[in-house]
């Protein structure tokens, strides 16, 4: 087999890097600005093509997965410590690369239309290119330190892109929050890397896996700590409890960014990292159950919050958190195949959902509030149906992409619970099913609210993105006319969505065997734990059926019921709201907001759930947010306590210095006498 294509694969990260530089240059001149989008799209698309060319090379002649290490140049080589700029290519890498560069290309094409007219057009594409560079580096890294480089790189790009509209204070605050919360997670990750090196004397995956394969099953305590430290990093980046608080706020960024970074790619880095380092996580008997529990708790928590939100992007953000929770559940039950499969399908349908939400927002001048729009299907039919497909996939409607991947996770969990007679996993599986119901409900609540019912809408405050960001009145060369009338977006934006919609509908069916082969041929293959779905015999049955088949039936029913419930309350019986409002006019005046009354007609079944959602939301904002911010608060207090020492008097400083010296000498002498 010739290695040419595999050698060319080394260029995958560097094409976007080059594009970032070119786009950076484009920033400086107004004339060059229009070039940014084509350059960026071309670079990412080229990276995608290279990925496809390299794809066949990660299999040996028998179709089994193999890995290649592709060395580029010496990065860090200090004594025995080696962390080079070199790439680890195996089937798992390929899956991730396809997602990153594939979705990346589509989002970039969409963004070329979406961002048109914005003052920061070139800056946006520079940051996106940089992001793709960092993300591809992350998934291709052959050692932990290079992975960390990508990890911090995507964090930085995320920071820069969340704060893209820097004249919005909320955007700046959200950017800062994202960065700081991620730093907390990264702290654990960095310590995990240090400890890994300390324990195994290498940070290179190939060597690490070799050592791990021969490790005795009883690992020492420091070794057992490593997965927990790494996990902290994964929880931060993939927005799991309690480090998820930054993700809902991150929606302040431009919508394509939300789709690309905060739904499809970056937030799945934590899932990827655990999958990549799966042998490490198997060393501790407590690591994977922890991952599973945190994942399920996050899925449940975020899904309930999503039920009570009105901002479209926020709903999707919480839904992303919830779906990431599923992936962690999958990892936690040693079903890496299912987790990565869900990662793949989720990338398609969530990117689709965000981008269609972006279209709605684009068309309604920034309006994102569910309560201010209705019946939009007549105004934007294409968007309507595209989003419908996305919603189907998210809700897990039979034979859509989300259906297959979610089922795989839930079935594997249940199987682990039933075969191992473990109450924990059974409970987790049931909780997962319940989340599936909530997901179907809130997904279609949104869709019915926006596209069904009578057509009415209120335009948002922003009169087009472009115009809004010209506080000084400078107009740009590229300008899209914004009618003050909702309209379908142009085909530059809709074309990539069609591809995504196809993926959202078909990826599950087409890929569910393929993904198994891919993962089993990579380092993410579970070595020690019982293999969930594939390759091993299925011991458990449910209702006399194969577990997977049973689970398909169950979740189909759940999805349909969820959708139906949503349809009843938010489409068919929506008029009830007005009737109630009319009858309780006084109360409405008291509430001063008719839209709360809209929700009055929720039945006894849904209302408690929604109420719990509100409670969770309050908990989220007050407790968890507060908790995370407290971490930043403690050093502040510390600083405040120290600050009086810096009062400015020369001799005050002298006394401080002399005291320090005297105390130090005294302590040293006390050691002696």
């Amino acid at each position, binding site marked *: 087999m010739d290695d040419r294509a595999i050698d060319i694969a080394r260029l995958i990260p560097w094409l976007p890097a080059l594009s970032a530089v070119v786009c950076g240059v484009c920033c400086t001149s107004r004339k060059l600005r229009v070039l940014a989008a084509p350059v960026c799209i071309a670079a990412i698309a080229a990276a995608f093509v290279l990925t496809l060319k390299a794809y066949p090379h990660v299999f040996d002649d028998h179709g089994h997965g193999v890995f290649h290490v592709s060395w580029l140049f010496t990065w860090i080589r200090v004594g025995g410590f080696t962390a080079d700029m070199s790439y680890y290519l195996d089937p798992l890498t390929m899956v991730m690369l396809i997602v990153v560069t594939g979705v990346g290309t589509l989002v970039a094409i969409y963004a070329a239309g979406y961002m048109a007219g914005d003052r920061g057009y070139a800056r946006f594409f520079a940051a996106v290119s940089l992001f793709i560079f960092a993300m591809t580096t992350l998934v291709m890294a052959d050692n932990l330190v290079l992975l960390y480089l990508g990890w911090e790189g995507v964090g930085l790009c995320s920071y820069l892109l969340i704060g893209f509209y820097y004249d919005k204070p909320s955007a700046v605050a959200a950017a800062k929050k994202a960065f700081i919360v991620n730093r907390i997670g990264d702290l654990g990750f960095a310590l995990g890397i240090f400890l890994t090196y300390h324990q195994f004397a290498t940070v290179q995956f190939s060597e690490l896996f070799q050592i791990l394969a021969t490790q005795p099953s009883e690992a020492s305590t420091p070794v057992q700590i490593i997965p927990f430290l790494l996990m902290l990093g994964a929880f931060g980046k993939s927005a799991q409890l309690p480090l998820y608080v930054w993700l809902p706020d991150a929606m302040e960024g431009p919508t394509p960014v939300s789709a690309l970074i905060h739904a499809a790619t970056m937030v799945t880095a934590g899932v990827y990292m655990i999958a990549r380092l799966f042998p490490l996580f198997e060393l501790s008997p407590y690591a994977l159950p922890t991952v599973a529990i945190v994942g399920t708790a996050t899925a449940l928590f975020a899904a309930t919050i999503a039920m009570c939100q009105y901002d479209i992007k926020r709903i999707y953000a919480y839904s992303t958190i919830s779906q990431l929770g599923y992936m962690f559940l999958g990892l936690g039950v040693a079903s890496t195949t299912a987790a990565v499969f869900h990662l793949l399908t989720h990338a398609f349908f969530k990117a689709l959902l965000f981008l269609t939400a972006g279209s709605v927002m684009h068309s309604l001048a920034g309006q994102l509030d569910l309560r201010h729009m209705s019946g939009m299907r007549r105004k934007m039919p294409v968007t309507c149906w595209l989003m419908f497909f996305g919603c189907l996939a998210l809700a897990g409607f039979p034979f859509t992409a989300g259906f297959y991947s979610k089922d795989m996770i839930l079935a594997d969990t249940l199987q682990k619970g039933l075969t191992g007679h473990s109450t924990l996993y059974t409970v987790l599986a049931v909780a997962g099913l319940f989340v599936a119901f909530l997901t179907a409900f809130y997904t279609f609540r949104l869709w019915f609210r926006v596209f069904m019912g009578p057509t009415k809408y209120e335009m948002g405050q922003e009169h087009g993105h472009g115009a809004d960001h010209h506080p000084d009145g400078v107009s740009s060369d590229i300008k899209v006319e914004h009618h003050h009338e909702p309209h379908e977006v142009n085909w530059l934006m809709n074309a990539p969505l069609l591809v995504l919609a196809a993926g959202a509908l078909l990826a599950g069916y087409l890929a569910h065997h393929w993904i198994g082969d891919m993962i089993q041929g990579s380092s993410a293959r579970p070595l020690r734990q019982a293999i969930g779905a594939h390759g091993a015999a299925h011991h458990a049955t449910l209702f006399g059926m194969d577990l997977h088949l049973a689970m398909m039936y169950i979740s189909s029913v759940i999805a349909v019921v969820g959708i139906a419930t949503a349809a009843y309350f938010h489409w068919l019986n929506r008029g009830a709201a007005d009737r109630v409002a009319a009858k309780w006019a006084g109360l409405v005046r008291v509430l001063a907001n008719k839209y709360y009354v809209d929700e009055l007609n929720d039945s006894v079944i849904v209302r408690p759930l929604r109420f719990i959602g509100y409670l969770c939301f309050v908990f989220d904002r007050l407790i968890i947010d507060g908790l995370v911010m407290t971490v930043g608060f403690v050093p502040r207090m510390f600083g405040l306590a120290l600050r009086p020492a810096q009062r400015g*008097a020369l*001799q*005050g400083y002298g*006394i401080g210095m*002399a*005291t320090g*010296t*005297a*105390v130090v*000498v*005294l302590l040293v*002498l006390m050691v002696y*006498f």
Partner: protein
Amino acid sequence: MHYALYMASAIGAVAVYMMMPRRGYTPSRIGGLLGAMTLGGLWLYLAKALPATLGIADEAFVYYYIFSGIAIASSVRVITHTKPVYAALWFVMVVLASAGMFLLLGAEFMAMAMVIIYGGAILVTYLFVIMLASQDAGEASGEKGDYERLPYEPVAAVAVGFLLLATLLVASFNPAPANPAARGESDERIIATVLTDRPAKRLAEHTGAGVEGAPGLPTALADRASLYNTERIGLDLFRGHPLGLELAGVILLVSLAGAVVIARLRVDPQPDGGDGDAAGRLAADAV
């Protein structure tokens, strides 16, 4: 012994604190008495353990108490006197007393150098600057001298200073044995290896030849079998630390040029020349 040192430091701290100038009544005499008693008591306590052979002439050791007492008392006056001129003059006393101690220790050259360089040159500079400043300040502000009288946080300063002192004393009273390997070369050896022309000289003397054997060397030096302290220092300085000597020269050059640069830095007349500068500058630019 450690406890005696700690206690002496503590009482000494109280004594110095009492002598610190303050707004109301300053019990400086009581403080001085207390301090003197502390020092005397400590010495008496230590005298019990004095060994038979001291390493310096036994009868001369009494001078240690005299010089040390003067040095310490003068140091206290340096930091408690409210008039800078007197503080500087008391510092001369410290220098003179330590010169005396240097003599006791057989360091004649250092004693003389100390008196000439410190007591003479440096202190005169200080006095000059003090005069320059206090003369001006006298007419500039009426409430002058408040900062002379009132020390900055005397409690903290004294506490910290004497805490450090206590630790230093404890360390000082546990010295390591002298390092025999570090012993300097003997005079004989130096004469034999470095001052090689000197034995020739003495040989010439013995043989009754003339004294002009070594040109440039005074007869008084040439015929000694041992070396003066000054000779030894000179030899050590030039043999052991020639680079240090060069470096010291460079540092003196730096301080010379630095003092010139600083002195000729222009200062705006406004008394509080802080951020008022900016306005002044803009106005000047406009003109």
